[in-house]
């Protein structure tokens, strides 16, 4: 049991940090531009596939740097030529544009790389068990993922809190027009933030690709969970996104690891009752309901605390 808890905690924190790499960019983009970027998870997927392709051509370590930069350039292009032109039609049009993009990117990726998972492997230098927890070998690659995401997290924190750029970004979060009046090029700030946010998502994709499955539906699987994270944490709140990422990462990982059901706790139902929704619920294991837990959480939060965990505004 202790082993399960330690391993699941490690995995949960890891998944949570990955989620945060994505949700941080999404939150900052949302609070600055008012755009909920539906294509954010698609940038994560692009990162994974670019990472896969570049690893084939030039190796993992250069790919780790170049793939996120490429995704960042794609993101900046989307902001500059897509969102900026759509802005005049309102937020719904912007949201729909990113929705269409997410759809198109998924199709393009499956067109180029196919619908089945690609063989994106852990680099040989990191393919060994790093530590042994009780009897389980914990792979070095996962430690590496954890280190990368923690480093990025600290870098992000320092940039936002301690540098001039971070100051401008923070100001633009709440008072975009005032920042414009002070002589900053808000359009360029937006483009940069969008680019950095996409690049972070791309980085998450590059490092998550070998560990998770690199497949053309990975964006569609992760995207909704990402929205749950930022709504749960409170729209526009970075600390909220951080807590929610970790929480959902932990919940998901623990749920998958647990195999209990109501039937295993209270014993099986009387077979004479026959098949009914009750027997379905009675027999379903926690691992099976893991995929719907985030959405249940979302509904609960919306009922009891609509502004989210640390959010300050309702919409």
């Amino acid at each position: 049991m202790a082993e399960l808890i330690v391993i699941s905690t490690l995995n949960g924190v890891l998944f949570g940090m990955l989620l945060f790499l994505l949700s941080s960019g999404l939150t900052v983009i949302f609070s600055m531009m008012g755009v909920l970027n539906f294509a954010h998870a698609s940038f994560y997927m692009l990162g994974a596939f670019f990472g896969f392709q570049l690893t084939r051509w030039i190796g993992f370590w250069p790919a780790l740097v170049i793939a996120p930069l490429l995704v960042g350039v794609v993101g900046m292009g989307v902001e500059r030529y897509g969102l900026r032109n759509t802005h005049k039609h309102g937020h719904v049009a912007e949201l729909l544009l990113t929705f269409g993009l997410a759809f198109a990117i998924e199709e393009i990726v499956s067109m180029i790389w196919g619908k089945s998972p690609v063989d994106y492997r852990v680099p040989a230098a990191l393919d060994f068990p790093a530590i042994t927890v009780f009897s389980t070998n914990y792979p070095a690659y996962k430690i590496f993922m954890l280190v990368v995401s923690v480093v990025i997290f600290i870098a992000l924190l320092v940039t936002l809190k301690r540098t001039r750029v971070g100051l401008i970004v923070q100001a633009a979060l709440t008072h975009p027009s005032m920042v414009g009046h002070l002589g900053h090029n808000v359009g360029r700030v937006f483009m940069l933030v969008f680019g950095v946010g996409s690049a972070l998502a791309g980085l998450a994709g590059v490092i998550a690709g070998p560990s998770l499955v690199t497949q053309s539906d990975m964006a569609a699987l992760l995207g909704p969970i990402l929205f749950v994270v930022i709504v749960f944490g409170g729209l526009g709140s970075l600390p909220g996104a951080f807590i929610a990422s970790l929480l959902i990462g932990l919940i998901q990982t623990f749920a998958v690891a647990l195999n209990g059901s109501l039937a295993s706790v209270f014993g099986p139902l009387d077979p004479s009752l026959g098949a009914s929704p009750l027997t379905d619920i009675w027999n379903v294991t926690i691992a099976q309901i893991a995929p719907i837990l985030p959405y249940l959480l979302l509904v609960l939060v919306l009922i009891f605390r609509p502004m989210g965990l640390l959010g300050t505004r309702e919409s």
Partner: protein
Amino acid sequence: MSNAAIPTSAAAKEESASALSFYGIWLIAAAALVVLPLIFSSGGSLTSFSLIGIAIIFALSYNILLGQTGLLSFGHAVQYGLGGFLAVHAMNAVASHNWPIPLPVIPLVGGIGGMAFALLVGWVMTKRAGTVFAMISLGIGELVASSSLILRSVFGGESGITTDRTSLMPLFGWTFGPQIQVYYLIAFWVMISAIAMYALTRTPLGRICNAVRDNPERVEFIGYDPHVVRYLAYMFAGFFAGIAGGLTAINFEIANSAYLGATQSGLVLFSAFIGGTAYFFGPILGAILVTYLQLGLTNVTSVWQLYFGIIFIAIVMFAPGGIAGILMKHRPLIRAGTLRFVIPSYLVAAIPTLALALGIILTIETVARFSGGDAINLFGIPFAATAPTTWVTAAVLLVGGFLVARITWRRIAEAWDRAATVARDRGYLA
């Protein structure tokens, strides 16, 4: 006296003329629904018409949310799918108990199912509009779609639940076995639903929905609660989506969890938006186009969904009013007689735009078939995906088409400005 009488009688005449054209459109639509299968009587076209009819109801129900009330939903298929499941269960129950309920009533059951679910979750969902509603609808959609795979006894797991539409009581000798009878059943419900939904837009509720979309704060000031209005709109949308779902269940004699999924929700959003959400007939056009493309393109290309995405992005970026918006923009010009100013620029722009479109298609197909090595058949002209000549042709069409098309688009804008100015002078354009 006579002076006063003339305008009134003229107004009355105009009113009766507009009433005539109004009812005329509905009568023509009804006649078209009746006559269409007689003209195109092949099995394939009957199936297509049935699907298009269902898509029309579904897209119109979606527009109660997006177009009328300004609620962007990413989970509209939930009501549609639940309506379908309830309809299947109702059909099975009716058949096994031999209740005297004919098949045409079943879609109503689906509608009630959709509405009941909307009643259940709608209050929490419609608390706020905008982005928050969009995300909640997405979350609820995922929740229901994933839950449907767990509750196997209700949703039948991966394979779904089947039924037999002919096992119900026949109505006037109709067993609804042949597709033609199902088509007429669907056409009947299309007409009823379309009229009902149009009538809804004319009621005070429909009007206050528009007000909630445009300015919820002022709605509160005149004494309405926008939350309640959104909730009601959500329920009506759920009702008609459920009818569409029930018809789908009848048409395919099965309901499975794909009905509830994100793809279905995305398609209805595409239909409504491509058609145009600002006008009642927009989603109808969109549903016809999207379903037709969906049926037609799947045979021609493996990446048909990509074309949808591109069309959708193009509409969002360049014509957010959709097809209906583009058409209705020309109305004042036609009335003012200045349409001839813009027609030449359209004809000039058509050639490079077509070249650009062909370049995009050729590029996509080249990439899609590069590894497979299949030949591309572009409107009768064969291309090899691996041949450099194909790549050069695609690049020339793409880049050249874009550069020339951009100039002609500018010409359209100029010609449009001239036409609009004249139309404004003549008093046809505000």
